[in-house]
């Protein structure tokens, strides 16, 4: 617990919260192993595994040969023989060589064996952009994982969720892909990590509002909150829902929120075509059609490979684009 002598909670970063989650899980359960590329003495390129090898030994937190399929494939076997592996994929686009293992085995072994083989594997993927990274370092790859039955897919957006969702992922009897927003690794918050957060499969309303609902996850949550701040200054009250859990998806919370305002904009930075944003839009439309005053809008990245750093600001959703989308929602006074 990050608490100073005065009893106040210290500000910690999401990176520190994730590190604490790993440390606490490894302390509580000997079968939890952390491995991947550079996660040992270096502590991971983002330092999420900082100090774990020193504390738990190289049998518990270790570097592997540089081969992503090997990392995930070995995790499958470790899980078959009683371990709870946590693997780091280092960067979103570096995870693609492991895709066959994820899709064909991690996601399917429980089903293939009628529940005889569980796959309690956590796959940590630093995802998305907005950090000026070069090619293959900024992909939003959530749609690939979300489209794969058998995987649970989480996208924390707050420091408290970074801790709580990684703990929940490691504790899950099923494989969980945790999409860690790189852009938010070093955002700080004053939190008590011991306060329970809503579990896997739950969305939360991050900001109350009455005029329209912004639906976001991961890197887009702080952006949506920022847009709501600006809108409030302009006299429009925007509600912000943080989806948190992409699979399972919380239709109930999201749709209740949309029904309460009658207008919705889905915000995500991945390419928009056939995306998670598309799925949310379709689900909300199917379930809330008679409550809607306007079609649900999407604000996403363009349908292009993630752009080079000098051009990423043209691609990514922005406060202006979100507010423009909100303005297009057929207001009576417009």
């Amino acid at each position, binding site marked *: 617990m990050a608490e100073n002598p005065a009893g106040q909670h210290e500000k910690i970063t999401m990176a520190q919260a994730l590190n604490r989650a790993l440390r606490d899980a490894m302390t509580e359960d000997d079968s939890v*192993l952390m491995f991947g590329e550079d996660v040992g003495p270096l502590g991971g390129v983002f330092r999420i595994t900082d100090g774990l090898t020193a504390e738990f030994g190289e*049998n518990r937190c270790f570097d*592997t*040969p540089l*081969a992503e*399929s*090997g990392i*995930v*494939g*070995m*995790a*499958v*076997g*470790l*899980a*078959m*023989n*009683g*371990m709870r*592996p946590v693997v780091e994929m280092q960067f979103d686009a570096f995870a693609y*060589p492991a895709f*066959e*293992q994820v899709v*064909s*085995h991690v996601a*399917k*072994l*429980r*089903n*293939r*064996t*009628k*529940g*005889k*083989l*569980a796959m309690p594997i956590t796959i940590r993927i630093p995802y998305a952009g907005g950090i000026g990274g070069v090619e293959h370092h900024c992909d939003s790859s959530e749609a690939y994982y979300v489209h794969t*039955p*058998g995987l*649970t897919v989480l996208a924390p957006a707050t420091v408290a969720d970074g801790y709580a969702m990684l703990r929940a992922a490691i504790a*899950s*009897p*099923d494989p969980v892909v945790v999409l860690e927003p790189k852009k938010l690794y070093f955002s700080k918050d004053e939190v008590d990590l011991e306060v329970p957060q809503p579990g896997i*499969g739950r969305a939360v309303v991050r900001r109350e509002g009455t005029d329209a609902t912004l639906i976001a996850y991961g890197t887009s949550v702080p952006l949506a909150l920022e847009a709501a701040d600006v809108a409030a200054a302009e006299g429009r009250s925007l509600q912000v829902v943080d989806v948190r859990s992409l*699979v*399972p*998806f*919380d*239709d*109930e919370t999201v749709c209740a929120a949309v029904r309460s305002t009658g207008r919705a904009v889905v915000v995500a930075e991945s390419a928009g075509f056939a995306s998670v944003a598309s799925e949310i839009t379709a689900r909300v439309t199917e379930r809330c059609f008679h409550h809607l005053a306007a079609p649900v809008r999407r604000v996403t990245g363009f349908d292009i490979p993630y752009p080079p750093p000098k051009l990423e600001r043209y691609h990514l959703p922005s406060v202006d684009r979100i507010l423009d989308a909100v303005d297009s929602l057929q207001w009576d006074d417009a």
Partner: protein
Amino acid sequence: MSHADLLPADVPVQLIDPDGRVTASADALPSPEALLRAHEALVIGRRINDQAYALVRQGRLAVYPSSHGQEACEVAATLVLEQQDWLFPTYRDTVSIVSRGVDPVEVLVLLKGDWHSGYDPVATKVAPQATPLATQLLHAVGVAHAATLRGEDTVVMAMCGDGATSEGDFHEALNFAAVFKAPVVFFVQNNEFAISVPLARQSVAPSLAHKGVGYGVRGQRVDGNDVAALLSVLGAAVEAARSGEGPQLVEAHTYRMQAHTNADDATRYRTDDDVEAWRSRDPLLRSAAYLTAQGLLTDDRVAEMDEKAEQVAAAMRAGLMADVQPDPQELFQHVYAEPTPQLREQAAFLAEELSREDAV
């Protein structure tokens, strides 16, 4: 270990030649009991292959990749294992799994189409049969590494074919196993063809066993139709892995006598002459010739083995004749430990649809 120690011999190890004559010193041979046990497993294995092939023609199995001609590899891979060891088979390794003690009807659930895996992999220590190539070799490394971490005395037998050695996962598995010193025996059944593609289009390495040297893994070649040599070489590899020497690579030279599966037409890519040349090297004939010459295989014993094989075949026929209708609700039950709200909705939708069908 110098690289020379990692390299396989120029000629595959053979202990008994195709005519049943001992080609090595007699004390290199496995015990008579071990050879008789293996021969019985070969007889049963051949019967399983031929029965399964017939069941495909009768429409009782959707498909069957036969290991006819490769039975010596199949049974030896299992007979060298202890109870606590794990077997990682491919789709062609039905006979291996049966030799491990799993009911053939449970093994054939996958190929019958009732579900993807019909046996309990944890209870049997047999991984689900792998249909993608070489992906299971990495799982084998993980199981072995977990065993090391848990202080278990476990060896993992990881099987694949010649085609699988071209896959990236084969190479990652060898490298990972070597780096982590995992107790895995990688067993390549080189049967000359990956569906239709001959070995020469798969690899130009001196042998597939030579691929070990690049990873610091010892490679060995063995006559894949000589069950005595297989028991000896695979047995030694298992012991080396068990005693902490790290992973081992064994390549067996054998031949797939039948097509890849019933869906394949082998006459498009190989000649009858090739197949005939291998018929004279049949692993059962060789084993029988040796054991008979030694006076170990009597007419009574032959009749006894044939009877056992016939019982296995009869049980297969009975088990596979049964028309099992899998419960459609099971489609939703094993995707997650707890179905998601979305899956519950879909399960309810299907139940409603089925109840309307029943009402008609």
